[in-house]
């Protein structure tokens, strides 16, 4: 039981990383991207391929995964210069499908539908973070989530975060305030993608195998649900959202009611969450985070 709870926490951590990325794109930048699964996949495969084929250690593949994903974030971010709302959503959705399609068909690199197995475990100074010993893995992962959270939080509180908010609120006004809106949109995508890549890297190191079937549209929708449920524009809320969505996701197993609850229960529930939250509480459980400012030499 407790072990299972730890597992949920680990998945929460992995998805929380993705949700943080989604939040910077959607919550701050106001762009509906449906491609977190694609970046997640790129990160996972980067780690899987570099580790199994070229013998890189996890810690070397981690930044590589982030960079690869960031590069693709740039690629998909560029079209956003011209796309808005609905169009962007579809283009990003298409991009996610393309990623999965390519992974499934590029047999010589990705081993196609068979996937890649026997990915080495994380080691820290010779200590193996065996994913079967969940505490150790959870600790490493939590540190990653914490670091990502702090970095994003700091970013949101800087003038860059505010510029991104301006782009979301009104692009034309933002332009006229001297903000280069294209640059900020692309930044948002790059950041969102790279953190999803990191999540993918951890996922590969936890499941020790990757296959294209994991990275479906469902993953993107789940991440979106996390951000919407927690509250857009609030990073704490994204982590909370990730936890709640994962709990719901594993609720039938956690309660031992798998036989009673229909298997489609959680997907239907995710759908309901999106609809209901939009109608009754569009700001999410926690709402947008208000920042308090202070003057120079003000009280600490």
């Amino acid at each position, binding site marked *: 039981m407790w072990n299972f709870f730890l597992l949920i926490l680990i998945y929460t951590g992995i998805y929380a990383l993705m949700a943080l990325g989604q939040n910077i794109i959607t919550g701050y930048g106001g762009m509906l991207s449906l491609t977190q699964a694609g970046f997640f996949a790129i990160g996972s495969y980067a780690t899987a391929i570099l580790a199994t084929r070229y013998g890189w250690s996890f810690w070397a593949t981690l930044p590589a995964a982030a960079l690869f994903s960031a590069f693709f974030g740039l690629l998909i971010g560029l079209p956003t210069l011209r796309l808005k709302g609905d169009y962007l959503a579809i283009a990003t959705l298409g991009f996610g499908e393309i990623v999965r399609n390519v992974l499934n068909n590029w047999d010589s690199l990705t081993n196609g539908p068979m996937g890649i197995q026997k990915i080495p475990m994380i080691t820290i100074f010779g200590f193996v973070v065996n994913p079967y010993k969940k505490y150790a893995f959870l600790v490493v992962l939590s540190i990653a989530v914490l670091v990502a959270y702090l970095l994003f939080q700091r970013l949101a509180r*800087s*003038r860059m975060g505010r510029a991104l908010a301006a782009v979301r*609120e*009104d692009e034309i006004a*933002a*332009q006229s305030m*001297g903000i280069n809106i294209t640059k900020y949109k692309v930044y948002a995508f790059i950041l969102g993608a790279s953190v999803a890549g990191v999540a993918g890297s951890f996922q590969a190191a936890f499941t020790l195998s990757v296959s294209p079937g994991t990275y479906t549209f469902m993953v993107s929708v789940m991440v979106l649900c996390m951000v919407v449920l927690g509250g857009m524009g609030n990073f704490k809320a994204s982590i909370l959202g990730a936890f709640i969505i994962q709990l719901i996701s594993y609720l039938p197993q956690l309660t031992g009611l798998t036989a009673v609850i229909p298997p489609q229960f959680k997907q239907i529930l995710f759908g309901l969450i999106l609809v209901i939250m939009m109608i009754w509480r569009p700001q999410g459980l926690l709402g947008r985070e208000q920042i308090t400012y202070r003057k120079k030499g003000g009280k600490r």
Partner: protein
Amino acid sequence: MTLLETLDLTRAYGGVVAVNKVNFSVEEGLITGLIGPNGAGKTTLFNNITGLDVPTHGRVIFAGRDITGSPAHKICRMGIARTFQNIRLFKDLTVVENVMIGRHFKTGKSETKGRFLNAFNSYIRLHQEEEEIYERACEWLEFFDMEGMKDELAKNLPYGKQRELEIARALATDPKLLFLDEPAAGMNPQETDHLMTIIRKIRDLDITVVLIEHDMKLVMSICDTITVLNYGQKLAEGTPYEIRRNQDVIEAYLGKEE
């Protein structure tokens, strides 16, 4: 001294010529009024100067530099700020945040301005930088007597205050030249009076002001010089006194007397 001039500026949408070979110039330190009937091309002229639209022909010269076709954010950085006819505030941000966004590119060391290093730098010096920005933003709010409502969401302000906030936000970019697109639209007489005082105060800060306005009382009483547009073309320019007596202008507004 001429701060800004347009040379034969033309903007056509398909067959419709919204602005036709307009030579419009703005003298430094004065308040310039831009008037004309609806659809005369005033806002289009503004958009073409401030980079939200690109002219089909002609050039825009600002402080001796050709800025034709530069993107809006670059033009803003050169020192031209503006407000909008339909208020375009960042509605879900607070009043002070709106003004702080105006300070966006005014922070950090100049040699790396707009570059990655600058972004990185501001990431490191976050607290100090934020305090600076906040302080400057509060000063501008004080200028408009709005410090008390700085934590309100912009969308919750009364209409007149929203217009003033937009001006405050534009001023926060430290412009040399400020374009106001119908600043008094929808204001009651008291608010309009307050606005007039403010515009004069802005001029006293050595900021050149150009305004589009339909409220003739306001235009005539505060503008030093007035340009009239009609059907996309310049009809007249001169002091309020001259404009008031210009036969063409009277016809444009009242129709030809037979």
